């Protein structure tokens, strides 16, 4: 049974002592997937949910999506129970894994989602066309889902999640299986949605992407929330570092000597290099230019 508590008005997600246990089968003991967890997430922010496999990320997302009833504690999403009917449109959940009904075309699948969240056909059609274009799927819109690559399925799944213009997006591994361009596109879209006021909670193993996009990070381990804060807070060591470039070797040696003389420590001196994504994009661009269309 779900228990409701009055959340803070600004909270997108509010949980108190939220607990989820799975009953063991046969002689196996019960498994506690989420130990009592307190959580308040503000609206309009992008929050990353990090943790190793089995740490409870997906369980937490499924509870927030209304798919799993907590065994203890209370939870409210956008001020209401996660299972309330209105949440189907106000909260979007993008589960990990393949899409249902692989014989449907991408457009049919989005139309099915639009109908399920009670969008009128005309509105749904407009939004479907928009999101197919925005997520670069318009060329494959009339192909069966079974023929989609993993990346295309991910992007279509995101399009389905965005169809109802939800206030809260719960995303489970939104960029796993995507190529760098696909990931970049998804990140852009999520930034746009957050800028428009939507709240995003995304579980991910892509640490660089989380670092790039998230305002805040939750770190889970074995069903417990073990760290929480902004990246600046979590990644700060208390030390300050000096980063420079454009000096020749002699000048670098002088700087190193000065650092040591003042009691500092030179950890490493490395050649400046470009970001791997920039290299990837440049090479892909060269390939596009070289091959006839």
């Amino acid at each position, binding site marked *: 049974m779900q228990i409701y508590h009055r959340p803070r008005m600004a909270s997108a997600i509010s949980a108190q002592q939220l607990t989820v246990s799975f009953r063991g089968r046969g002689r196996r003991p019960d498994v506690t997937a989420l130990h009592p967890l307190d959580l308040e997430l503000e609206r309009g922010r992008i929050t990353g949910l990090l943790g190793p496999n089995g740490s409870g990320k997906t369980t937490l997302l499924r509870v927030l999506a*209304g798919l799993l009833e907590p065994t203890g504690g209370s939870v409210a999403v956008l001020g209401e129970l996660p299972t309330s009917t209105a949440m*189907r449109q106000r909260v979007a959940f993008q589960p990990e894994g*393949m*899409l249902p009904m692989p014989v449907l075309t991408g457009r049919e699948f989005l139309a099915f989602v639009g*109908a399920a969240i009670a969008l009128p056909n005309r509105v*749904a059609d407009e939004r479907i066309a928009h999101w197919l274009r925005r997520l670069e799927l318009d060329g494959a819109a009339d192909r069966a889902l079974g023929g989609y690559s993993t990346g295309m399925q991910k992007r279509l799944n995101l399009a389905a999640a965005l169809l109802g213009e939800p206030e809260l997006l719960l995303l489970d591994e939104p960029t796993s299986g995507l190529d760098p361009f696909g990931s970049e596109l998804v990140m852009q879209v999520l930034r746009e949605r957050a800028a428009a006021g939507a709240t995003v909670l995304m579980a991910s193993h892509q640490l660089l992407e989380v670092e790039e996009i998230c305002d805040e990070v939750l770190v889970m381990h074995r069903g417990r929330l073990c760290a929480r804060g902004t990246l600046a807070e979590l990644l700060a060591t208390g030390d300050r570092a000096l980063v420079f470039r454009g000096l020749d070797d002699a000048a670098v040696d002088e700087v190193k000597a000065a650092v040591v003389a003042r009691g500092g420590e030179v950890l490493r001196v490395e050649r400046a290099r470009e970001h791997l994504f920039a290299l990837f994009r440049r090479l892909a661009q060269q390939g596009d230019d070289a091959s006839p269309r």
Partner: protein
Amino acid sequence: MTKGRGPFGLVLRRCLGLATLPTLLATLLAWWLAPRSEGEPLAAAAAAEPWVALPLLCAAAICTLATAGFWPMFAQGRPGADMVRRLHPRRLQGGGRAIAAALVAQALLTTAVLLPLLPAIGAPAKANAQVTATADRDVLLPGDGSVGELAFTVPAGRTYRAVTIRPLAGAPADGLVPTRLHLHGDDGALSEHEIAVDDSLQVFQLRFAPRPLRHFRLVRNGGTVPLLFPPGSVTVQLDAAHPTWANALLLVLVLLLPSWLALGLGCLCGRAAALPTTATVVAALLFVATVGELGPAASALRRVLRGEWLLGESLFASLTGGGVLRTGLPLLLVGCAAMFVASRVQPWRRR
């Protein structure tokens, strides 16, 4: 308006898309191979029945299995089940609408098969209701000639046109000589036709000019095979005729019962089992309830091919008659019960 985009519309399109061509081909095969009626309607019906059943079973099997395979909530562990469960959070998670769509698709295809096929293979153009005749005293016609006739009574005030018998035959004391029977009314022979019975459950029809009737007799005219006429084994055919298309539409409804049972139990099975298990359950139930005569489908088809009106008294016939209601009602109830239980049982969830 979101019509046609939900589970009902999707499943309906899926079933029609998959089943139309195979059903059409099976119908053409049935039309090509089914023997045509040549005077004796009962023999012709028996010969044509397997061929006519082929496209009907084809439509039923494809619609039910396509539905179980298409809608993710008919099995555990299907891709995207979480998404569908969230979008359709009611108790059956869209399963009820998917089943309704499968039945509508099957009904459309079955109607499209039966309406042209029945006249094409020479099925009777009209259907007549049947009334069970009641034996006045004895129901056994011994093979030794000690009793020469059996008397039957039918409801008064109606006009009849034929008597159908389906007796049980016993072992003859002497050598086997088929027992020959004549039909007599209150005022002499009703039919000049004589029938010879030498085995159990042979079906014979004795026709006569339409006339009001109250009593009739089956008169033995030689032979050594003892014949037993249990209740329901002698029926008379009313003269009032109904169009065969109406009878075909009733048959369509009867043919939906096995599919309803199979999908209802498939829905329940899907709460805990994976797709191969659910598909096996659905296919097995459909086969047993359609071809295996667990339900009324096979006998209803036979009756339509014989020109018997399905809404007649045979609807309630018992024992040998195997009435539509008697055999169909359990399927309907079990299907309903399965759906109800499925709606109350939470899917078994893996962590």
